[in-house]
């Protein structure tokens, strides 16, 4: 269950895409989003520099909300809320 307390979003699941390159992070995110309930948030960790732009594009067309993109050690942390 996604919990939001004091402005900190806690995802209900985490998908580790470290070491994976395009288009794998998008493929795996597409599969994994169905494992969280509508309204809940999936966390994706990726270090492919293309993922910054690709996850945003995927979310836009797949109909989900990219809540945040954060730069972390050598990569990115995405939070995506399932909308449908």
């Amino acid at each position, binding site marked *: 269950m996604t919990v939001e307390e004091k402005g900190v979003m806690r995802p209900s699941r985490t998908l580790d895409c470290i070491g994976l*390159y*395009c*288009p794998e992070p998008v493929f795996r995110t597409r599969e994994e989003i169905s494992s969280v309930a509508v309204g809940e948030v999936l966390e994706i960790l990726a270090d*492919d520099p*293309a993922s910054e*732009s*690709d996850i945003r*594009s995927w979310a836009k*067309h797949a109909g989900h909300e990219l809540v945040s993109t954060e730069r972390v050690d050598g990569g990115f942390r995405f939070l995506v809320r399932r909308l449908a």
Partner: protein
Amino acid sequence: MMERDEMTKKILYVQTSGPDTPERLYAPFVLASTARAMGIDATVYFLAKGILGAVKGVPETIKMGSFPSLKVVMDQAAKAGVQMMVCTQSAQLWGKKAQPDEFEDGTKIVGAATLNDLALEYDAVLTF
């Protein structure tokens, strides 16, 4: 990334030609710079062999006829506000690091989802 007006027209130039055909490398940048002068948003996407022309240090080595080097033309395009994107899978296809420091300054590493998105969003797509 610069602010984009929803009403502004956009053209995507897909560069698939590499340094082995230098005569094919100038047109996307000349057209994209001209598009910017016309108030049109322009993006050059380096795909497949096209990424080899964006590898750091390569554009300086490409020169055709009375044209300046490709580096000069690329820098003019960047200065005009042309966005440049490099396909991460294509970089790997050619054994390059899919990292920004492998490619010319101002290029952004992106992937397949981004190209599909741009093709749908832009008003025209030209492939070289």
